[in-house]
């Protein structure tokens, strides 16, 4: 599962390669540990509600909302057995508090009914989830009576947390903000490329054990396709910028030749290029990126993008905006420098006449014999 869905901004403890450790006993020990501020054991199930993919999360509601920075829209009767729906899910599926829906198992076949008692709201992807109690979560996922999938927690001292976990002897992986993944009493996560080959080729069939691998690889498949298309578009944009600049530069090659003939140096030429093209490139990049953001806003919410049960929220992210502008300006500058370099490598008369001065062809045998 994507880390953003599993962990949010908290530290995440998941099962290691040793004996099963993510259970009520570990959760209780963590809750009692001095450095830990909040503990949320959770069970995640992937399923469908009314044909739409939905992540069903089993967690204690109040703790869950504190981790997600959420609030109640319509609080129900608070209790362990009362399911709640995120506002995004409610809007997407046309649900309301008091509705009854059917949920299905995750990696084991199950059918269950839930009565939506309340609605919550968060500013995170959890806004599209269904929150249930632990017995329901265990039923849907097939986990044992005291087991969880993961434990989220907040702590101000991750180092103390790690040494505490080592002392407990739990076999876990720990990750979180500014913390490289720590493997405690566990091997690092195995290379999934072999199981990926088996899943892709179908050799030996695909036993149910591969289901969790298949699901995680399906999510990375979406990432691969998204990055791939982004890369292709990036290539097209870069080529388009270069082609447009090459077209414009081709008309000015004689001018460059004249300037060099009357004494303009290479450094002066580069400075000139920078001064003339940088403002244009910057303006065009800001305009283009801005128009894209506005178009995105205009399209939402009618054309919202839902990926793996979570709606992709449109938000202005300055760093992404700056990165796009930087990429476009960088491509433009690089393209300009490459074009100029090609012209600077030639003689001024070649630029003025727009014909390269080339050596007449020689025979290889003549070259080798002297």
């Amino acid at each position, binding site marked *: 599962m994507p880390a953003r869905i599993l962990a949010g901004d908290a530290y995440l403890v998941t099962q290691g390669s040793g004996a099963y450790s993510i259970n009520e006993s570990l959760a209780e020990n963590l809750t009692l540990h001095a450095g830990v501020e909040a503990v949320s054991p959770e069970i995640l199930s992937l399923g469908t509600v009314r044909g739409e993919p939905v992540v069903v999360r089993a967690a204690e509601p109040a703790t869950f909302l504190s981790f997600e920075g959420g609030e109640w829209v319509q609080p129900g009767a608070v209790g362990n057995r009362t399911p709640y729906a995120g506002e995004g899910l409610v809007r997407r599926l046309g649900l309301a508090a008091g509705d009854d829906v059917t949920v299905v198992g995750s990696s084991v076949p199950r059918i269950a009914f839930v009565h939506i008692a309340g609605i919550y709201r968060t500013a995170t992807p959890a806004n599209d989830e269904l929150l249930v109690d632990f017995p329901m979560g265990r039923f849907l996922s097939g986990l044992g009576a005291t087991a969880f999938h993961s434990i989220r927690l907040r702590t101000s001292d991750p180092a103390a947390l790690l040494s505490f976990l080592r002392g407990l002897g739990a076999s876990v992986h720990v990750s979180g903000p500014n913390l490289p993944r720590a493997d405690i009493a566990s091997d690092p996560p195995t*290379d999934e*490329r*072999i199981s*990926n*080959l088996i899943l*892709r080729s179908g050799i030996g069939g695909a036993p149910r054990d591969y289901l969790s691998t298949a699901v995680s690889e399906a999510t990375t498949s979406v990432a691969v396709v998204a990055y791939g298309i982004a890369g292709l578009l990036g290539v097209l944009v870069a080529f388009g910028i270069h082609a447009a600049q090459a077209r414009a530069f081709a008309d000015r090659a004689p001018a460059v030749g004249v300037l060099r003939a009357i004494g303009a140096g290479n450094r002066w030429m580069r400075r000139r290029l920078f001064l003339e093209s940088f403002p244009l490139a910057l303006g065009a990049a800001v305009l283009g990126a801005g128009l894209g953001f506005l178009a995105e806003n205009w399209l939402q919410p009618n054309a919202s993008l839902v990926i793996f049960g979570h709606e992709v929220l449109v938000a202005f992210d300055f760093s992404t905006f700056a990165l796009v502008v930087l990429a476009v300006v960088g491509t433009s500058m690089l393209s300009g420098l490459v074009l100029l370099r090609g012209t600077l*490598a*030639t*003689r001024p008369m070649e630029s003025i006449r727009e014909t*390269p*001065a*080339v*050596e007449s*062809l*020689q*025979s*290889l*045998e003549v*070259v*080798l*014999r*002297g």
Partner: protein
Amino acid sequence: MPLTFSPLPFGIDGFALGRISSDIAARGDWRIDPANLNSYNQKLPGFSLLWSAVVSVGGLSPLAHVQLIMPLLASLSVIPAYLFGVKATGRRLGGFVAGLFIVLFGSFLLLTSSVSKEAIGLLIFPVAVLLFLERRDGRKRALSVVLLLFLAFLHPLTTLLTLGMTSALVVLAQRRAIARGRFSLPSFVLDVATGPALAIPAWAYYSAVDLPFLADLLAADALGLFLGIVVLLTALIVPMGRPARLRIGRRFVSPVARGILVPAIGILVVLGNARNGLFAGAVGTQSALLQMLPAIGVLAAFAVAGYQLARRTTNRINDLVVAMLAAPVALVLFGLLRGLDPESLLIVYRSVDFLDYAFAILIGVAFVATWRWLGRWWPAKAVLLAGFVAALLATTPMAWNTPAVFGVDNVTSPQEFRALALLESFGARNVTTDQRLADVGAMWFGYATDSSLPVKLRDNESLGGFQYAIALERWTTVGAQVHPAPNIVISTVVFEKFLAENRIVYSAGPSGDRIWVVQLVSPV
């Protein structure tokens, strides 16, 4: 060199080819038995038919003497290289250097030392390509057609690459004809019919015998990728029909040129495979191969310089070099892009070997140019020659130390063979051992073998269902071969326990490298 290790075939394919040759010589006919473990090699009878004819005429043993003819094949491969070198440079020195490269470059030496279909293929394909290059002479064209048709019965990869090279030659020639306004449809049709179109009879034959290689290549997505690569490379080589323009003041050879990208990418791939195992499930680059990279770098520098010289001058070998580079590069790209699995690794490293003749030409050109440039500076010339030979010799471990360089053992020792023969005399029906011995047992002796013994020993799994096992002491040191996966090292405790729990019926070999034949005792 392999004869110093063992008189038996170097490389397991030799056993299959030996068995098929023996059967042909004994029966007097060639047949394909789909149920036979050697059916793949039966479908490609070129080597076996030739060897069975030699065996019948010369009264030789199909297995015991097959390794003896390999030096002959290796020495014959010098001839096309010499011809290329002389044709390119107009000097015998160029031919000498090209021939020297072919005879000493480790990777090529490995192939011509192993008893395999490719050994003959690597001898025939350059001749076929050279004859096709000079196809204006009708006799040469006819002979190239004969050789191309024969290649289809010898080795599919060689056939595919040779057809690719002839296609590239047709593209270059026709592009030049169009540019000069001399395009002639009958000439184009003749070129296609006697070149690339010979893929049709090859395809028909492979379809008729249901060759597995063809199914892999013609799978829908693989074919789409292959065609895409072919289109791209065709677009890339079309402008190469004419020499590259050299601006006034530029030299023929410059150290920074686009041509340096190719060997740079190759080295990066090799290094990447060492670090991360690029091909999932396959062994990564071994340290011994990494130690050869400086020597390979020196040879690559010669090749890049020769390439620049060849492209920036008019000569008789421009088309030949471009064609002989384009086809293997296409297949290497195909191997890299179809998915990084063991089969892709096989395609990549097998295709790379077909670049060696092109490299020989380019290195010959660069060497002669350097030789001439050094003028009368004899000490420098001696250093040049010595350095070149030293670089070549530094690559020879690829041929004679394959366990260290490639992580795979190609030698079958006489004691291993005796152990396998003993099992045949027992009438063993089901034998488990490692991949190499299992293949030899199946290919030569024909009994059912299984190669999962090392995995089962490592994972403490049951060995029920097998009668006998062959175990080697070196499994506890260098590991058991389970090619293309990395070797599996069995712990001494587990190994000794296995021997203790079962009945040893045969043991041989020096201490540290013993072999046991074990009768498996069913668990109570």
